[in-house]
């Protein structure tokens, strides 16, 4: 990768370099090699302190795998992830556990991510229990503190998850992620299971928490508008690779990669009337047996012969705005 520009001292909270993750599917036949899902094919990015990166893409593009790899919940098949200066794969299990207090996760499903048999106090205290040596009183104090900061009532800690609505449950999940005062929070589709009016409350909360505690976010979402609203930077993924990456304002205003353009085009707007627009043909491809060339070539409206021969790499189109397409130069004009 050629994107090692030397800038002033950058304070990166997380830096992923060339992350590769392939899964081998169960063998279907004795005589054929098992299929390999190429979930991540060399993904690199970094997020500086107090900023947020949104990763967008459609199902199967590898965005959730990326989240789990950054969280060290899945092994890497190549590349490395560095959080607060430490290479995660080089750590011993104990050291990794210790390090986990710096990075926590918020999951998509507010119903599945809380143990139905535990009370809120215990759920929120879980990372504290595992990661910090706090006395009982201190722990309770910390729980009360984070419960208050996500806007729940102090009395809520004695209730079970099923007594709460989806939005409140997501607040509990966020409180749990905040408990160890992490510097990085990875949020995998944090609002996609919520109703619109509640989604807005949770998005505002995420913003407020960033203002208040200076946490860094890596947010995975399929909803472009949500990412535009919360994130400073955005990375667009297609079949295991980042195809465009840059400041959110810049990418949404001047998308360069044909896939980003198609994605933005496809989002229904709040303007009445049917719009005739360029629709992508074909289906979202499966990340099994990727073609040699650009992964998007089969669906790209501007495909050329060279697209099927080599794979384009991320290149700067303007300061901090990168796109992986052979036609970059033509798109920016």
């Amino acid at each position, binding site marked *: 990768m050629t994107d090692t520009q030397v800038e002033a001292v950058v304070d990166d909270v997380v830096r992923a370099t060339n992350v590769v993750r392939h899964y081998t599917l169960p063998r279907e036949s004795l005589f054929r090699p098992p299929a390999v899902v190429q979930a991540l094919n060399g993904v690199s990015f970094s997020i500086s302190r107090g900023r947020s990166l949104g990763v967008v893409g459609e199902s199967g593009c590898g965005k959730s795998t990326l989240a789990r790899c950054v969280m060290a919940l899945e092994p890497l098949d190549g590349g490395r992830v560095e959080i607060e200066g430490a290479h995660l794969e080089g750590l011993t299990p104990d050291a990794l556990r210790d390090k986990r207090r710096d990075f926590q996760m918020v*999951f998509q499903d507010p119903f599945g991510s809380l143990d139905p048999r535990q009370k809120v106090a215990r759920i929120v205290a879980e990372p504290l229990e595992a990661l910090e040596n706090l006395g009982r009183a201190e722990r309770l104090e910390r729980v009360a503190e984070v419960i208050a900061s996500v806007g729940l009532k102090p009395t809520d800690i004695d209730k079970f998850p099923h007594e709460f609505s989806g939005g409140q449950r997501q607040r509990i999940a966020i409180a749990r992620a905040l408990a160890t005062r992490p510097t990085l929070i990875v949020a995998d589709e944090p609002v996609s299971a919520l109703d619109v009016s509640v989604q807005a409350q949770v998005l505002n909360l995420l913003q407020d928490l960033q203002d208040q505690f200076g946490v860094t976010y890596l947010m995975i979402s399929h909803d472009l508008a949500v990412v535009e609203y919360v994130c400073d930077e955005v990375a667009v993924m297609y079949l295991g690779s980042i195809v465009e990456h840059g400041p959110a304002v810049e990418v949404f205003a001047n998308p360069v990669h044909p896939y980003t353009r198609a994605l933005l085009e496809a989002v229904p707007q709040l303007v009445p009337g049917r719009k005739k627009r360029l629709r992508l043909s074909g289906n979202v491809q499966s990340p099994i047996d990727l073609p040699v060339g650009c992964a998007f070539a089969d669906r790209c409206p501007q495909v050329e012969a060279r697209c099927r021969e080599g794979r384009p790499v991320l290149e700067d189109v303007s300061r901090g705005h990168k796109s992986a397409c052979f036609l970059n130069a033509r798109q920016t004009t």
Partner: protein
Amino acid sequence: MSEPVSKNQLMAALTLMTRYRNFVIGAVLTGLVIVCAFLSAVWTPHSAVELAIRSRLQLPSLEHWLGTDHLGRDILSMIMVGAQNSLIVGIVAVSIGVFLGVGLGLWAAAKRGWTEELIMRFSDFTFAFPAVLSAIMITAILGPGAVNSILAIGIYNIPVFARISRGAANAIWSREYIMAAKAAGKGRFRITVEHVLPNITSVIVVQATISFAIAILAEAALSYLGIGTQPPEPSWGRMLNDAQTYATIKPYLAIFPGAAIFLAVLGLNMLGDGLRDILDPRLTRGR
């Protein structure tokens, strides 16, 4: 407008009653067995072991409520003491199954891979033999007797619980809150104890009541075959065996111990069904 609603409420209340009815009837029948067992430890109408040849083969009367057997023993007293026997067999055998089986099942689910494969293939192998058959094999090796039959039934229970808890645990392991616990830095052992086990207890409890019933049946069968509880200790199965000789002339001899087994097994099964309904999270915490 309000008419159909109240009718519906009535229906809802009725369904709730039927739902609990299983549990209530099951609990009463099981409770009866337990009361008999405890009571017989301190008091029985007559002695359950002393022979009284003079009053043998009597029909039910005020003196002997359920009559006497071919050796003149009071059948009611024997059934009461037999309940003790059945209870102990059930408790010990199910405990063996629960502790070892659930332990193995949880271990398999936590480790996956080779460990799981090995544990599960082993329990498939054990599972392939019917309860009574494997019990006969075990007693054939260890010799007949109450302790050995308990052991045999207990060993049979291990794969039953291993399979059911592995299945339930695997489902829990795929939940997002497990992922959250991993992200919180918890290891497999802590996750198993703190998240997996509490979430599969209802499944285990239900299976335990059903296994309890099967254990009582198995003990009766083993004693009937003469390789379970040995005389003079009363056992429902042996009472049936004894009664067989007189089946044509004194059929009631077989009816009462048979009814005791039937009611105990029915009670436990209904209790299991009732518990399953009550513990089903969809019914108690629907949104």
